C-alpha cells in the first residue's frame, strides 16, 4: 500500500509521463500518416517530374483533404487518444486515494466524477475531428494546392510534406506539435479541476504547490515549488503578471490554470495538521488565516 507521499509523487509524475506516452504514440502515427499522404498525392498527374497544372489535379485536392481527415480517425490514432483519456480516470483514482488518506471522512462526490468526464470530453474534442483541421489538415492541403498551382517539382512537394508531417531536427511534425500543445494542459487541467471539485466541501485552507523542476520551468513555478500556501494567498496571485500566464486566470481559475501553459504543477490540498507551524503563523500574520480557539489549541498555535 503506497504512502500518501508516494501517492502524491505518483500523481505529480504522471502529469509528465501520461501526456508523454500519448505524444510518443502520436509522433509514431505521423509516419503512418505520411506514408498514406504519399499514396494520395501519387495520383497527381506529372510530366517530367513536375506536377501538371490542370483541373483534374485541382479536383483531387478535396479528395486528399477528405481522405486525410478520415486517416486521422484511423483506429491507431483513436486507440492512442482512447488510451490517453483512460489515464484521466486513473488520475482521478490516485487523487481520491490521497484525499481519503489526508482528510478523515472524505467522500468523493458525483460532481467530481462529472468534472472528470467534462475534462475527458474537452480533451477528446481537442484531439479529434474538426479540431485537427486548422493545425494539421489545412497546412497540408495548402501545401498541395500551392504545389499544383505553381507546377512544382514532385520531389519538392514530397519533401515539404515530409517536413510538415514528420518534422526534422529543427521542427516537430504537425501532429506531434499539436498533441504536445494539447495533451499536457488537458491532463493537468483535468487533474486540478477534479481536485478542486472534490474538496469543495472540505473547507481547505492550505495547499502545497508541487510538481518538480524541469528544464523549462518558469520562474513563477520555481519560486513556489514545494511550498505551502494559504488559499487566499494563492488567490492573490491572480493579479500578478508572469510569462506563460493564461489570460483567463482569476482568483478561482488559478487553481486550475496554476502557472499557465504547459505548467506541470498542481495545488495539493493539505490538512492543517500537516502544515508546518511557521507557515501557519505566517499565514495568520498576513491575515489570511484566522483559526478558531479550538483549532489553535489543536494545532499548538497559542500566541
Amino acid at each position, binding site marked *: 500500500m503506497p504512502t500518501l507521499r508516494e501517492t502524491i509523487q505518483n500523481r505529480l509524475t504522471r502529469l509528465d509521463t501520461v501526456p508523454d506516452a500519448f505524444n510518443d504514440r502520436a509522433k509514431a502515427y505521423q509516419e503512418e500518416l505520411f506514408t498514406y499522404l504519399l499514396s494520395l498525392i501519387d495520383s497527381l498527374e506529372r510530366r517530367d517530374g513536375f506536377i501538371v497544372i490542370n*483541373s483534374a489535379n*485541382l*479536383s483531387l*485536392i*478535396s479528395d486528399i*483533404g477528405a481522405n486525410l481527415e478520415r486517416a486521422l*480517425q484511423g483506429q491507431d490514432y*483513436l486507440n492512442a*487518444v*482512447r488510451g490517453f*483519456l*483512460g489515464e484521466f*480516470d486513473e488520475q482521478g483514482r490516485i487523487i481520491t486515494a490521497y484525499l481519503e488518506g489526508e482528510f478523515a471522512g472524505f467522500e468523493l462526490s458525483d460532481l467530481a*466524477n462529472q468534472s472528470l*468526464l467534462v475534462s*475527458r*470530453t474537452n480533451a*477528446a*474534442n481537442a484531439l*479529434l*475531428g*474538426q*479540431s485537427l483541421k486548422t493545425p494539421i489538415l489545412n497546412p497540408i*492541403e495548402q501545401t498541395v*494546392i500551392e504545389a499544383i498551382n505553381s507546377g512544382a517539382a514532385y520531389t519538392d512537394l514530397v519533401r515539404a510534406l515530409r517536413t510538415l508531417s514528420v518534422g526534422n531536427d529543427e521542427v516537430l511534425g504537425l501532429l506531434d506539435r499539436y498533441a504536445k500543445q494539447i495533451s499536457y494542459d488537458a491532463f493537468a487541467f483535468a487533474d486540478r479541476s477534479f481536485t478542486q471539485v472534490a474538496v469543495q466541501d472540505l473547507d481547505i485552507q492550505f495547499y502545497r504547490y508541487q510538481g518538480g523542476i524541469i528544464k523549462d520551468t518558469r520562474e513563477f513555478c520555481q519560486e513556489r515549488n514545494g511550498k505551502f500556501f494559504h488559499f487566499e494567498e494563492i488567490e492573490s496571485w491572480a493579479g500578478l503578471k508572469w510569462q506563460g500566464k493564461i489570460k483567463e486566470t482569476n482568483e478561482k481559475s488559478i487553481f486550475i490554470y496554476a502557472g499557465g501553459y504547459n505548467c506541470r504543477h498542481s495545488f495539493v490540498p493539505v490538512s492543517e495538521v500537516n502544515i508546518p507551524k511557521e507557515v501557519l503563523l505566517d499565514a495568520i500574520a498576513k491575515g489570511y488565516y484566522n483559526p478558531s480557539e479550538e483549532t489553535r489549541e489543536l494545532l499548538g498555535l497559542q500566541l
Partner: protein
Amino acid sequence: MITPEEILEMVSEIADIRKKYHDTRNPGNILEKKGELPEYYPGYNRLVKDYRDILVHAERQVFPERLFLEKSPNMGDDEYIYLKENFKNTTLSVFKDFANSVKRAFHEGNWSLTFEEEEGIYERAKLTFKEYVTDQYDIEAFFKSILIDQKLKDSNGILAVKPKLPVIEEETEEGVIRLVDGSRLNEPKVYYYDVERVVKRDEDIIIVETPEKSVVSFQGKDQRIGLVYEAYTKEAIYRVEQIGKYTDYQFQVYTFYQHDLGYIPAFTLGGEPVWLDDAIHYTSPFLVAVDNLDLALVNKNHLEVSKQLTMYPFRVMIGDECDFQTQEGERCNGNGWLNGFNVDGTQYRYTCPECQGSGLKNRPHRGGTMLINSGTNQLAADVVKPSEAIHFAQPSPEALRYVDETIEKDLQRAKETLHMRDRSLKQSTDSNNITATENLKDKEDQFAFVKPISDQVFNLLYDCLWTIGQMRYGDNFKGFQLQKAKTFDFLTKEDHLYNIELAQSIGNPVLIESAISDYLRFTFHAKTDQARLIEIIKTADRLFAMKQEDIVRALGRTVEPWEMILHNSAFYFIDQLMLEDEKFLSMELSEQVEALQNLAKEKANSLSTNNQNSLINQVLNPIREDVA
C-alpha cells in the same frame, strides 16, 4: 316550356325503340342485336362503343371479348376460355398514369373554393352551405377522386343534381300519405348516369333511364321490372314510371321537383366536342390512345398464352404401338384402353395401365433409360439411332421477343399521344441540353392538352355547387367563390429538384433561374412573389450560377461549408423561414438574405458538431463502461 304530356310522348317513343331489343329471358333488360343497342338518338351506339372501348383499359377485369374475337376469328374454344380465365389488364397503368397527371392540375395551391359567411342567414338550416357540401357530402373529394376518372372514361355521361326531399308520413282517411316536410330544407345531391343510360339529350331536356324498376304485370304476376325514367327540363324534374302490363309499355308521369332554375340541372361530363348527325357530342381525350392500347393488350395476352404453350421444351420420342396384354387376353393394340368385364357379364372400358392411355409404348424407362427396339436380327443396325430416337423441341424465342418489343412500342405510342412523360427514356439521352429542352416542350404540350379538361371539370364543379345551393336555399343562397386553376404543374417536387440539379450542372444561369422559378411556383403556388424569392436566393447565394464540380473543388478554400449548404438547400431554408415568420416575405431584402445565410451557417455548425460528437462518443464510451 315542356309539358308533362310532351314528356310522356317522348318516353313512349323511346320505349318503342327499346322494345325491339327486349330480352325475353330477362324481362326488364335488353339484348344487343349484332352488337348494337337501341339507337335512341343518332350516334348513340357509337358513343356507347367509345365508352366501352375505353373501359377495357380503364377498369380491372373488363374482358374485351370483341377485341379478341375480331383479331383472332379462328381461335379455338379451348384457347379462348384459357385466355378469358387468365386475362390480365396490362394497359390499366396507362389510364391510371394519365388520370393522375390530369389530377395534378388540382394541386391544392392551384385553385380555391371559398364560401360566403352564412351565420344566421338561412333560416331552418342546421348546416351552413359549406358544411353541407364539404362535411356532409365532401363534394370536393368526389370531384378530385371519382369524377375526373369518370369524365376521362365517359365524356357523354351526365351529372344530375336532384334533391332528396324531406318527407313526413301522415295518417289520413285514405291511408298513410307522404308529404314534403316544409320545416326542413331539402338535400340536393349529385347523381352520375353513364352514357348508356342517357336516352335523350338536347338543349331543352335530358332523359335518363334510371336503375330503378317499377311494378308492372308480367306473365300474370306483379314484378318489379318496369322502366323508370327521369326527365330534366329547365323548369322541373319529372319522374316517368311504367305501369300496367309490361308488354304494353304504358307510362305515367308526375312532377318530382319544380326547380324553375331556367336551366337543366344535369350536366354532360364533356370532352372534345364532335359533330354527329346534327348534334354535338363529346369524345374522351383518352380515346386517341385506345387503338394502340388495344394492340398492346391483345398481343400481350396472346403472348402469355404462347409462352405457356410453346416456350417449354417438348419431349419428342419414337413411339411404338402399345402391345400390353392382360392375363385374360385383352390387348391394348395402341388404343390406350382395354375392355373389362363385370361379374354380371357387362362390359366396361378402362385405361391401359402400361401406356396410360397414350397408345404408345412407354419411353423412357422409369429409370430414365431410353429403350430402343431391337429387330429380330441382332446383328443388324438399329432401325432408329438412339440419338434420333429422342430430342427436345423448343421454339426459338426470337418470335416472342419480337412480339414483346412490338407491345412495348405500342404502349409507348399510346403514352406519346397522351403527352405522358417517361423520365426513364429521357435519362438515357446523351446530352443534358437536349433533356432540358425536351422537358420544356413536354411541359408546354401537356399544359395545352390538360387545360381544357381542367376547365371543364371546374365548370362542372361550379354548376353542381350552384345548383345545389339554389335547390336548397332558393333566393337566399349567397353563393361562393371558385378560383379556377390558371397554371398548373405536372412535375413532382423531385422532378423539379432534378431539373434544378441538371441546370446547375450545365451552369447556365438562365436555365437555373427558370428551373428555380418553376420549383418556387410549385411549392409556394400562386400566392407568393416568386420574383422576390429568386432575388433573395440570388443575393444570398454567392454560388448561384456555379457548376457543382467547381464548388466541390473550391470547398474548404474559397468556398465555405455553409455556402455550399446554402447553395444546395436554399429552398428548404426559405420554406422554414416562411413557416417560422409569416412576415418574412415583407422584410427588407438585406434582412432576408441575412436570415437565410445565418440559417445555413447554423446548419453547417450543427453538422460539424454532430460529426464531432459522434467521434467523441466513439472514443469515450468504452472508457465510461470501464469506470462504471
